[in-house]
């Protein structure tokens, strides 16, 4: 039986003050990150933010200009990539084209000197783990993108590495496959209990799979927190704007409270201390009232039906444009030109300087 | 991934060795053609023979005209055909490709062995001029010209462009001359350059059909005027190199222009 199932024997990973400079470009600027044993941390950010650089330095495929990396307390500076005992899944094209799926998965074990029957047995187990046991004799070009990535995952895990690294593993796949595979990866990661670093530019992915999400920008870690915390309580402007959608609405802050559309709401730490600014309000936090007797302050511009929810674009009396996200059952009663009343839920908001 | 220092050193040494191997004969040609054997002095006198000697000069002119003529005939024959196939008769594209690549599989020597009757018939019409070589030469350059133009056509998605132009009311002639042709210029120029390079050095057909082109003449005078012969050979390869250099400059130029306009 697999001895790695739910064993919880993951190791801790420490990135300490990592900096990577290419000429005038600071790809990484003092990144410090601690990953607990068995944890899945996602690094999220736009391209060029340094997330892939950090991952590659951890893997040993790139060298930091300064700072250090340690796994299970052992400093890995100077340890070559081939000896770091990590499993890596690349964005695409990483399966060896001339080997069967089984041979691909067994490759790492072959490098470690296992004999054929041992490594093929282990490889078969891994293929079962990712649900591809009948495909052992096929070649990479005969598989779909999603299947190829599952094989890549099996291959990375076959050697029982101490850390799993995923470099935008879903970015090259179709939307539907992406969602399925993301859950699959998380399931396997939990079952094996391996410490994992997952790099992506897709926030939905990051929020869905990770124990904690670190948002990066220009080589620096802006905020790292559990998904819900990150979404509800962004601590910097970048995080508030990057994660989820926002309406920027005028608000005045006094005494830890901001007044937005007439409703007082608490402010999140990191907000403007006092005075006039812009409150970042989530579309789903806007409340629409269609009651004809109530006071209206906006008119509907258009309604986008997206399935179970709809997005309603509104023109406010003061000329601002807002976007509200509501259940489609509500939105279906709205037509362009209708007058509605808009207020906000009393959730905490981040207020930035206007 | 960083390359180890020993690899860098190995690479440098090997590249130098290769460069030496390829440069050596060229240097030897330069040396030979400019040296008076008795005294070891340097002289360009034998290079001058290329223009002073009547027969030699004539053969050079013949080759140059032949090169240009072949390029022109190739363009007239091949470019409209290939564009036409892409736009109107896509089912024929495999046939055309096969025919254009066929000369790669049929040695020039074989073609010349079997072409005597055809060439006799041709000289009946145009007289006994070396320029008649243009006709078989176009066949020899077909594979290279085809690849070049085909790549250019593939890169611009001819069908979509022509359908867009047609839907806006353009005639086929307009599509051909003003939409497609300007966009494949680089490919056409590249094909023309390869044509010139090939014709300037072509020996098989010219010698076996007894026409006095430059390569044939150079081979003939080697025993008598060795230095001039070598000078001529070196000059022709330098001309080809120059042409290819100009071509790569032009195509890079166009590429960057396109990129910035995008």
């Amino acid at each position: 039986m697999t001895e790695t199932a739910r064993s919880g024997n993951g190791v801790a990973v420490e990135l300490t003050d990592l900096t990577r400079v290419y000429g005038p470009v600071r790809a990484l600027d003092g990144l410090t990150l601690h990953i607990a044993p068995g944890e899945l941390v996602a690094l999220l950010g736009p391209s060029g933010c340094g997330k892939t650089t950090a991952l590659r330095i951890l893997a040993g495929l790139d060298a930091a200009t300064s700072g250090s990396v340690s796994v299970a307390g052992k400093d890995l500076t100077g340890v070559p990539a081939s000896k770091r005992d990590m499993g890596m899944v690349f964005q695409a094209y990483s399966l060896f084209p001339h080997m069967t799926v089984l041979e691909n998965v067994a490759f790492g074990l072959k490098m470690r000197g296992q004999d054929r029957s041992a490594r093929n047995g282990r490889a078969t187990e891994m293929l079962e783990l990712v649900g591809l046991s009948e495909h052992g004799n096929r070649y990479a070009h005969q598989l779909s993108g999603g299947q190829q990535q599952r094989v890549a995952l099996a291959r990375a895990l076959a050697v029982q590495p101490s850390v799993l690294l995923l470099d935008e593993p879903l970015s090259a796949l179709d939307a539907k496959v992406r969602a399925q595979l993301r859950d699959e990866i998380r399931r396997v990661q939990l079952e094996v209990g391996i410490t994992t670093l997952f790099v992506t530019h897709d926030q939905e992915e990051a929020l869905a799979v990770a124990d904690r999400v670190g948002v990066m920008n220009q080589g620096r870690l802006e905020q790292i927190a559990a998904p819900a915390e990150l979404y509800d309580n962004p601590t910097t402007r970048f995080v508030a704007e990057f994660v989820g959608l926002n309406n920027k609405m005028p608000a005045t802050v006094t005494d830890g409270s901001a007044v937005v559309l007439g409703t007082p709401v608490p402010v999140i730490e990191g907000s403007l201390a006092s005075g006039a600014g812009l409150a970042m309000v989530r579309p789903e936090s806007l409340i629409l009232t269609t009651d004809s007797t109530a006071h209206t302050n906006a008119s509907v511009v258009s309604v986008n039906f997206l399935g179970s929810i709809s997005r309603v674009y509104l023109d406010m009396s003061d000329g601002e444009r807002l976007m509200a996200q509501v259940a489609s059952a509500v939105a279906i009663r709205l037509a362009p030109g209708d007058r509605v009343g808009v207020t906000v839920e009393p959730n905490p908001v981040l207020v930035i300087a206007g | 991934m960083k390359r180890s220092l020993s690899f860098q050193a190995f690479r440098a040494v090997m590249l130098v060795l290769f460069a030496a191997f390829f440069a050596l004969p060229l240097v030897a040609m330069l040396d030979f053609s400019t040296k008076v054997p008795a005294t070891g002095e340097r002289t360009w006198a034998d290079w001058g023979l290329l223009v002073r000697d009547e027969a030699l000069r004539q053969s050079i002119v013949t080759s140059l005209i032949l090169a240009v003529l072949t390029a022109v005939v190739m363009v007239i024959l091949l470019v409209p055909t290939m564009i036409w196939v892409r736009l109107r008769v896509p089912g024929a594209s495999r046939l055309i490709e096969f025919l254009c690549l066929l000369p790669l599989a049929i040695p020039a020597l074989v073609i010349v062995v079997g072409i005597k009757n055809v060439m006799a018939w041709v000289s009946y019409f145009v007289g006994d001029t070396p320029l008649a070589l243009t006709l078989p030469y176009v066949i020899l350059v077909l594979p290279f010209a085809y690849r070049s133009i085909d790549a250019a056509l593939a890169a611009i998605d001819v069908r979509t462009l022509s359908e867009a132009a047609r839907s806006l009311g353009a005639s086929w002639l307009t599509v051909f001359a003003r939409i497609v042709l300007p966009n494949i210029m680089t490919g056409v120029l590249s094909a023309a350059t390869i044509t010139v390079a090939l014709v300037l050095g072509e020996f098989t057909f010219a010698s076996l059909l007894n026409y006095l082109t430059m390569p044939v003449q150079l081979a003939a005078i080697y025993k008598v005027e060795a230095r001039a012969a070598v000078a001529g050979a070196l000059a022709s390869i330098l001309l080809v190199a120059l042409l290819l250099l100009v071509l790569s400059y032009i195509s890079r130029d166009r590429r960057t222009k396109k990129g910035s306009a995008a």
Partner: protein
Amino acid sequence: MAVDQPAVTTKAGTGRRFSVGPSLALLPFLAYVAVFLLVPTVTVVLGGFFEDGRFSLSNLRTLGSATVLHATWNSIVLSASTALIGATLGALLTYLILAGNPHGLLRRATVSVCGVLAQFGGVTLAFAWMVTVGPNGLLTVLLSDALGKDTFGGSGWLYDMPGLILVYTYFQIPLMVIVFVPAVEGLRPQWREAATNLGASTWRYWREVGVPVLTPPFLASALLLFANAFAAYATAAVLVSQGQPILPLMIRAALTSEVVLGQQNLAFALALEMVVVVTVVMLVYNWYLKRTARWLQ
């Protein structure tokens, strides 16, 4: 709502299926190729079966004679050896070139130079080597001055098989570079990184991944080089004035022979043999290429 208009019919042949009209425009090209390529080829293929205007197998039987077999064997040896040497050195050179900066000057310059050198043929190439390692060649003189004895000059080796092998290699290597570059570029960096990540050293990467992936295109390119050498004529024609050590020169002798009349048909038979060999090699090359192209998607 607009009234239904009948569909405007355009000129015949705008559909995708075969229709006569537009195909007619291809006639000039097809006629040209037929006259200047197909007719000569058919002439050669059929001509070998005739002698003195009558059907005869005598010319084909001559293909089995000692002299012809000897020349054929030499052609095969020449083509195979220069194909292997050219392929190996060319593959090495390709790797060395591509190992550097992909946008660097060295890369672009070398590939262009290879384009020029692969066109080097016939007269130019023959002269180049005659003045390098021939009796009064640059290298010959330098070496004899340095070593005090005549290393190259005497034996006339340049004008026989050893010389041909050396000289052919000069254009086989650049041809290999041109043909092999796409294959080496097809080696995805992810394979190297994945292999390293899984514990492979440089040596093991090449042994398990690099070489196996490159072997099919390498062999295919070697086949191409073989066909190229087998069909080559001009260089040998200029270098070798006496004798017919290889098949193409035997064809020359048959064509230009004043000694034996009626050798024309023998030339056809020899040319037929050449066409058969080259065609077979090119077919194998094509088939092999298609088979392995799937991998490097």
